[in-house]
């Protein structure tokens, strides 16, 4: 049997006391295809790495097993060491004899160490090289949504020299933000003109995405504008479609404009001449969604504005004012200082339109009994909901949404702006009820990720690490349906039959497809069935 496996043991500079490395060495040299077993005290340091390279070169081994600390930290560096020694970095199997053996148990663990290393040897024996491959990518970005987030991203990308196309469903940019929800929110005018004058940004209004294929770096899309479909290519896509607000006005008819939305109140505040300034203004918020951010800020902001402009009595019916957005606490304290009355109630107050005024029955917890207030103007609660076409877009992009229908705002691994599909980002309101500060941080992290992804002009990927074997694939589409990253397509290579094909750029190497494939056609180099079962074979031997 040709001796092709080299084993390096590391006693971590004496840090591993309960493994007898000589005994380990003695046991392992007996394995027929093991060329050598070298014990060293610090493989991760320069000197250790040097010995690995020289030993590999002069012993001419093809596979390397390193028994040391956890691969989580050192697999990458040892991979590079293998490359220096002229070996493919994937021909490395590690045995975690430190954290998961020496440090994890009392007393001598030499036997366990030997078994862990044998498991690694069995796996190493079957390892195959995986080549790196560079894929040219398109550096343009498609921004869906011409609101605050969308325009900001386009501008910042342009400053970084990346071209963006802003796709806006309405006929004009920033359409929805015309009805500013809070009195002090900024004016969009200058930003829109800056976008329209920037030649790095192409604006397509009353246009919609209708088709998308390909994956990160090479999305080819179809955009529908004025009845015809424009084919385009992009390297990354940003979803910035914002949210939709729904007035929670109670069922009573809107009695003569007395029940308003935040935006309507702002317009009243902005209006110079107002024949009768409302003496009492009521706000209801916090009942539909307790930890609402934007409605909280808007209510506090407008309550203060109403106090300052009209010096009216202001009542705020709330459940528990959560001030987790930047500046919210300051606003709340200011409002209290200015004499705005906050009434805490468990259940949403009843709203009745009576004799020209709005009557609110609320069960105030502090006073403990039902109190009735009459206000000239009541600003009803507004619930933040996903945009209407959110489900069409999410099925088009084949990306998931959270329990409330917003894009990915719960997955801790993808937080804050990534989606399960590489190259597609989600920013701002379409991700949930975010306040200004969070939207801005979303924008910058999206811009940074896109810049990092696209600026090199190419993507380096593992070539065919996860591969569907065309001979065995029966095109049953199971992998296509289960892949969480939409990395598998059904392709017809020349005159072959249609088979599944994994896109290396989009594949996130999870192996769900390899496990479920009924024809065992998908191999996942490094974790093939044989390589996993080979580790199991090493059990029960000691």
């Amino acid at each position, binding site marked *: 049997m040709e001796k092709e496996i080299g084993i390096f043991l590391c006693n971590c500079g004496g840090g591993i006391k309960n493994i007898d490395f000589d005994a380990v060495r003695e046991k392992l040299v007996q394995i027929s295809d093991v060329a050598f077993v070298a014990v060293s005290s610090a493989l991760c340091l320069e000197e250790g790495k040097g010995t690995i390279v020289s030993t590999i070169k002069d012993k001419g081994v093809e596979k390397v097993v390193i028994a040391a600390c*956890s*691969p*989580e930290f050192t697999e990458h560096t040892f991979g590079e060491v293998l490359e220096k020694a002229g070996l493919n970095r994937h021909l490395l199997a590690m045995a*975690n004899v*430190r*954290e*998961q*053996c*020496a*440090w*994890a*148990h*009392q007393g001598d*663990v030499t*036997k*366990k160490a030997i*078994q*862990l290393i044998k*498991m690694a040897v069995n796996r190493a024996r079957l390892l195959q090289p995986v080549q790196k491959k560079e894929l040219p990518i398109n550096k343009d970005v498609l921004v869906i949504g011409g609101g605050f987030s969308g325009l900001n991203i386009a501008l910042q990308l342009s400053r970084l020299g990346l071209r963006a196309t802003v796709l806006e469903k309405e006929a004009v940019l920033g359409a929805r933000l015309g009805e500013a929800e809070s009195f002090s929110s900024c004016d969009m005018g200058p930003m829109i003109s800056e976008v329209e004058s920037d030649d790095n940004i192409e604006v397509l209004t009353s246009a919609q995405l209708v088709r998308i294929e390909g994956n990160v770096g090479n999305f080819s899309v179809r955009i529908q504008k004025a009845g015809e479909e424009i084919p385009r290519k992009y390297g990354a896509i940003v979803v910035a479609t914002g949210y939709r607000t729904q007035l929670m006005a109670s069922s009573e008819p809107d009695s003569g404009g007395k029940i308003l939305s935040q935006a309507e109140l702002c317009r009243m505040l902005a209006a110079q001449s107002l024949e009768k300034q409302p003496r009492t203004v009521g706000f209801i918020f916090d009942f539909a969604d307790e930890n609402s951010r934007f409605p909280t800020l808007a209510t506090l902001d407008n309550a203060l504005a109403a106090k300052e402009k009209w010096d009216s009595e202001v009542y705020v019916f709330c459940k528990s004012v959560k001030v987790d957005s930047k500046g919210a606490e300051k606003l709340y304290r200011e409002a209290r200082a200015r004499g705005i009355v906050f009434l805490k109630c468990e259940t949403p107050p009843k709203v009745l339109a009576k004799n020209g005024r709005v009557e609110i029955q609320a069960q105030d917890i502090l006073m403990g009994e039902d109190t009735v207030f009459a206000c000239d103007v009541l600003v009803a609660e507004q619930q933040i909901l996903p945009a209407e076409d959110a489900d069409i877009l999410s099925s088009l992009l084949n990306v*998931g949404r959270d329990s409330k229908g917003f894009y990915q705002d*719960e*997955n*801790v*691994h993808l937080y804050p702006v990534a989606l*399960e599909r590489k190259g597609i980002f989600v920013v701002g309101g379409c991700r949930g009820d975010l306040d200004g500060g969070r939207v801005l941080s979303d924008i910058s992290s999206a811009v940074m990720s896109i810049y990092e992804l696209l600026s090199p002009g190419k993507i380096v990927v593992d070539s065919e690490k996860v591969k569907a074997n065309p001979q065995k694939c029966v095109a049953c589409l199971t992998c296509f349906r*289960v892949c*969480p*990253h939409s990395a598998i397509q059904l392709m017809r290579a020349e005159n072959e039959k249609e088979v599944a094909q994994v896109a290396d750029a989009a594949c*996130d*190497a*999870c*192996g*769900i497809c*390899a*496990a*479920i494939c009924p024809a065992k056609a998908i191999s*996942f180099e490094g*974790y093939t*069935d044989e390589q*996993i*079962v080979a*580790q*199991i*074979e090493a*059990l*029960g031997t*000691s």
Partner: protein
Amino acid sequence: MSKEIVAFCCQHSAYPAADLAGKSGLRYAENVRIIRVPCAGRIDVIHILKAFEKGVAAVLVLGCEEGACHHITGNDRAKERVKYAEMLLKEVGADGGRVKMYNLSPNAPHKFVKILDEVSKKIADEEKQK
């Protein structure tokens, strides 16, 4: 040495949790054999059955917490497959209870150790009864 317990550990959650257990000096049963996998969703029924063919005492599949899977559906699919494996084992008269799925996050070494102690204690009790 009592029979081994195979633990397929997802590299995003269970594997780092195991490392952290070792680093923070927590001790657990020595007959555990950890096999690193890219995601709990990589583990299929055949791997579990092959482990039992080898005569291991128990097989654990340790993945990310519900809803926090790096690959979105990896841990849910693993849970379904463990249930299916349990049924297949019961069909052949083996003890279905010996294959289990647990969810933990990478910063939960104590949970990792608790799981292993719980399983090895259960097996020890069952061995005693036999």
